[in-house]
């Protein structure tokens, strides 16, 4: 596992003068073996940051380092893996679960055994390898997506709103799984969500993003108990608390 660092990363869509700056000189560090939560509203740039990290969109400025080395271009085996929001579009409907997972496994490994091991890791029976995504529920698909991401032996795992398309009764099982895996495998993870309560549950550190910038960043307990930025306070006030 290794450390992921964003150094004044800028992501800009559209022509240089006009267009929009989705991520504006963001610097953030995800230390090895820890889970950093990124919270913010839609349009705050959190997904753009994630997509830039895995190379799906080009950087307009700054750089992204893994253990001090800049990340290469997309296409080569990449030390970062990502789990997407929508479990219904993140698996190829024409490929079996096993084939989807196997695709991410590095060459020269016994694929069948590795697929079975990965499925077991995400609490799915090994015979799921032969099934198609259409036969799976949303929660099960998200587990498969997680297994595929882990199959790539990622140095860093990026989870982009992985529970927001799931029902509340299913969300809990996926969150428990993510937490258990993160702790057991000492995963370095960037966990993105608009839901402060969900981010709080999974992350050791929380970064609050707004308008393309990180407005506040700190250890989970400190940030929630003593928010400095007015926007963080606003988020905290809007998040429901259990009234007892």
């Amino acid at each position, binding site marked *: 596992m290794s450390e992921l660092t964003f150094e004044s990363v800028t992501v800009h869509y559209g022509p240089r003068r006009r267009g929009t700056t989705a991520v504006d000189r963001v610097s953030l560090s995800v230390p090895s073996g820890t889970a950093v939560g990124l919270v913010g509203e839609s349009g705050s740039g959190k997904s753009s940051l994630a997509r830039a990290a895995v190379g799906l969109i080009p950087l307009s400025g700054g750089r992204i380092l893994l253990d001090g080395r800049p990340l290469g271009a997309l296409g080569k085996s990449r030390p970062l893996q990502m789990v997407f929001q929508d479990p219904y579009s993140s698996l190829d409907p024409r490929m079996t679960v096993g084939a989807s997972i196997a695709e991410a496994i590095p060459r020269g490994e016994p694929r069948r055994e590795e697929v079975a091991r990965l499925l077991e890791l995400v609490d799915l029976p090994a015979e799921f390898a032969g099934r198609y995504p259409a036969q799976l529920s949303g929660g099960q698909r998200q587990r498969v997506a997680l297994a595929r991401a882990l199959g790539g032996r990622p140095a860093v795992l990026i989870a982009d709103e992985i529970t927001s398309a799931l029902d509340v009764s299913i*969300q809990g099982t996926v969150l428990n799984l993510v937490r258990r895996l993160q702790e057991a495998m000492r995963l370095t993870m960037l966990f993105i969500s608009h839901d402060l309560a*969900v981010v709080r549950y999974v992350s050791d550190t929380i970064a609050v993003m707004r308008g393309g910038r990180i407005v506040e960043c700190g250890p989970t307990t400190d940030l929630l108990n003593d928010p400095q930025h007015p926007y963080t306070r606003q988020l905290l006030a809007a998040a429901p608390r259990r009234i007892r």
Partner: protein
Amino acid sequence: MARVFRSPVGMGAAALLSIVLLLAIFAPLLWGERADAIDTEQILRGVSAQHWAGTDSLGRDIFFRVLVAGRLSVLLALTATAVGVLIGLILGAAPLLIGTRAGRVVTAGVNVAVAFPGLLLALFFAVVFGVGARGAVLAIGLAVAPGFARLVHTLTSTVAERDYVHAARIAGVGRVRVLLRHVLPNVGEPLVVNATVVAGGALLAFAGLSFLGLGVQAPQYDWGRLLGDGLNRIYLHPMAALAPAIAVVIAGLAFSLFGEAAARAIGIRTPHVAHLAPEEVEPVGPGGDAVLAVERLRVSFGEVSPVRDVSLTIRRGEAVGIVGESGSGKSLTALAIACLIEEPGRVGAARLEFLGHDLRASDCRPPVPPKIQQFARQSTCRGGSEAAFAGQIAGSWDGAGSWDRGHRRLLGLGMAMVFQDPMTSLNPVLRIGRQLAEVAEVHQRLRRVDAAELAVQRLDAVHIPEPRRRARQYPHEFSGGMRQRAMIGMGLMGSPALLIADEPTTALDVTVQAQVLRLLEEVRQASGAALLLISHDITVVRQVCDRVLVMYAGRVVEELPVTALDNARHPYTRALLAAVPDLDTDRGQPLAVIPGRPADPAHLPIGCAFAPRCPLADETCATNDPPLMAGVACWHPKGGGGGE
């Protein structure tokens, strides 16, 4: 593809196509010699018993020549199609392979080429490549390519944006492999269908080129060539020209019809749903101060009933929440109350009264705008039809039909509805002010100017800054939260007694969500309207409502005051509350979870629908569905006393 054969057209086309293909394969073997047999005694004869279509200038039988010519015609057409499809695939997929910037150049070139008529291109290339079969194949292939490339480009660029393609690229899968494994298989069906149609066109084009003398040269012959030879004598012996013409038409039709039938089979996938008569039960007793009184509401789609025996009463000014997971029937309940269930859905109720009016009295179904016919799945209704729904609720749908004016007025003014997705619930081509004013013009018969003024006032009431300027803007100029406010404002144009909000804040950010919820509360206080709030999020309902109905698998499993939520009696309600993490959840412990998956309305168990996921379930639960008694439908409620 099996669906192709179910329609009569598809079956006919498939039969015709197989005949054409079989003839193309076997005719030259069977009749090749007879077609080439020269008989100088029988030159240029007309139709006879011996020669069904007469003979040509060398005394050869034209009928057999037409049959034999089928192979070359079909073969050349298919080769030309193959050339066109291959070039089209390469050009269309180029942007994926060579990157966006270079791809843009290719796409621009294709777009220019598409603008030229196909036959013109074919003639141009035929001249370039020289007269003859090979030249004609290349010419037609190249003429077909741009159109096909455009189709490939459109289809692949949609699929290329899917997350599974992104995931594969992140996993280090190369571009060519991504194209072959992920993109092409997922666009294969429409491409094959289109190629079939293209083949039909190529067949006609080839006949045309050969007819003009640019295609097949003697001694080879195809249908176009035979047609050209026969045409000189069309007034003497019409069959000599008609026979090959008929062959071209039949073969062309076979390809095109098959392609069309296949396209239709792929494009439309509506499951056939049988109709069921709704259960008719006589109403019981008047409503008292109830705004809405519903008893034993049932919504069915064929054999499946996603809403079963839901009863609820909402009093004036009361805020009632319905909570449930997706597929629990909560949104359908709201739509049924607003009379917005469309064919083939059926609504039945022992009682369905709004402000004392029986909504079942007239056919509780407005005339259906054609674009929202599909209702087989709840998600399809969320798709893009909410603007149409909103229009109906506002009563502006003016199709002629059985829905009488009184009901429209009653629902249009007395009931207001706010949908989940503020992007689709406002008509994108009408100004916000116009959309609001329409309600008052239709129902209150206000003059246009007055209605517009009222709209501005209502926008102001829902805290839209600069309402006069904003009223002149279009929905896309509003943010999500502002659109939701505008929708609430639209509801306030009448004097609603009931405001139904279906997941009004799900698509909004948390900070905006809080504002919209506060607005709903404020509107309720100011206007005295009752509120029916539907949400999957129990914490949202808790903030706003007085009373909660928890739905599972189409039934109300528990009904309780919000203050009693922490002492909920139904195991599902308790599990739902525990499953949602909040800011006080213990991070050291795993979250409480509900095992299993939500019930599927199409395959409900005999007993309690929650039993397969319930820790307390026993034999009674597996065999008997518990009735809703004393606010809870469970055999083993917390605190005892449920069911029997």
